[in-house]
């Protein structure tokens, strides 16, 4: 037991917390602001149905940057975090996709 404890204590010493550098914090911030500028500019150009796709793609890129770098998921040692995130997105996808599959195919009523 004591061996186990000292072993995990040592790993915790080695796996010291990731401290984001000031530069990377600011770089992500600039990227998020650039994404915002881009998505607002794109909103005024008529791309037909692609306006929605462009807006949601940029939003997803921004969200991914926030999750990976600002929420430190890229540096986490806890593997279960990834599982929780993937399941949340998966069940959100089921909620949206199956609901829309229903509502968009009711034309025969």
């Amino acid at each position, binding site marked *: 037991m*004591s*061996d186990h*404890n*000292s072993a*995990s*204590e040592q*790993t*915790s010493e080695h*796996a010291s*917390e990731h*401290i*984001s550098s*000031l530069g990377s*914090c*600011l770089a*992500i*911030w600039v990227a*998020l*602001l650039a994404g*915002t500028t881009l*998505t*607002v500019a*794109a*909103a*005024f*150009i*008529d*791309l037909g149905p692609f*306006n*929605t796709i462009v*807006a*949601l793609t*940029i*939003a997803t890129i*921004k*969200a991914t940057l*926030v*999750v990976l770098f*600002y*929420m*430190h998921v890229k540096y*986490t*040692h*806890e593997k*279960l*975090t990834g599982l*929780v*995130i993937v*399941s*949340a*997105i998966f*069940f*959100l996808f089921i*909620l*949206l996709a199956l*609901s*829309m599959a229903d*509502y*968009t195919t009711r034309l025969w009523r």
Partner: protein
Amino acid sequence: MQTSQAAVDQHADQEHAHENPALLHHFATAEQQKNAAGLGMWLFLAQEVMFFGGLFCAYLVYRYKYFADFGSASQQLDIRLGTTNTVVLICSSLTVVLAIRAVQLGKRMALVFWLLATILLGLAFLGIKADEYAEKFEKHHVPGPSFNYHELLPGQEKFPAAERQYANPHHAEMFFSLYFAMTGMHALHMIIGVGLFGFLAYKAWRGKYTPKYYTPIENAGLYWHFVDIVWIYLFGLLYLIDRHR
């Protein structure tokens, strides 16, 4: 030899536990305790995804059903205020990251400063949102008995005045119902977040958080970033995707 080494390690462990009063007795190490708290926070955020997911789903269903009217109603929103609020929230996410960096480096006053900066930006967001809501009240775009909507459908300006088609007010009212439900729920999360950061700023000022123990700062940060992500999608769906029509 090995046993004595283990005994020394155990002794060091106990000393370590004394050095870190935040380590609860049912966790073996501070890292285990931190991971458990972090995982709990992520599970909370997963159910928040489903909570906001229901609202997003309702929005998608009604936008599909009342496509033209939603386009008309969406163009009534003030894109300048929406963009400003997006920028304010992104800046507040940066101040949260800088607060976590400050506590990791053991800089107490910098931590308090960045927490207060986050609160200030959160309040700025809520102020701008209140301004937008006030405009909706003035234009009678708030769902209810005084709701009044008389706007053209998208792309009708090019027709002669007599042939122009107007949006169905009931369908536009549904847009504004969802607008207030979604942005209102988001604003409620912001209000809770501001309160949370106020509490953390007080505790940080009292010197509660050190490089060895700052889990509450980190988990409140996760919450704040999540609320930021929800706004990124709300901004896209409510303000942007029907702007060009």
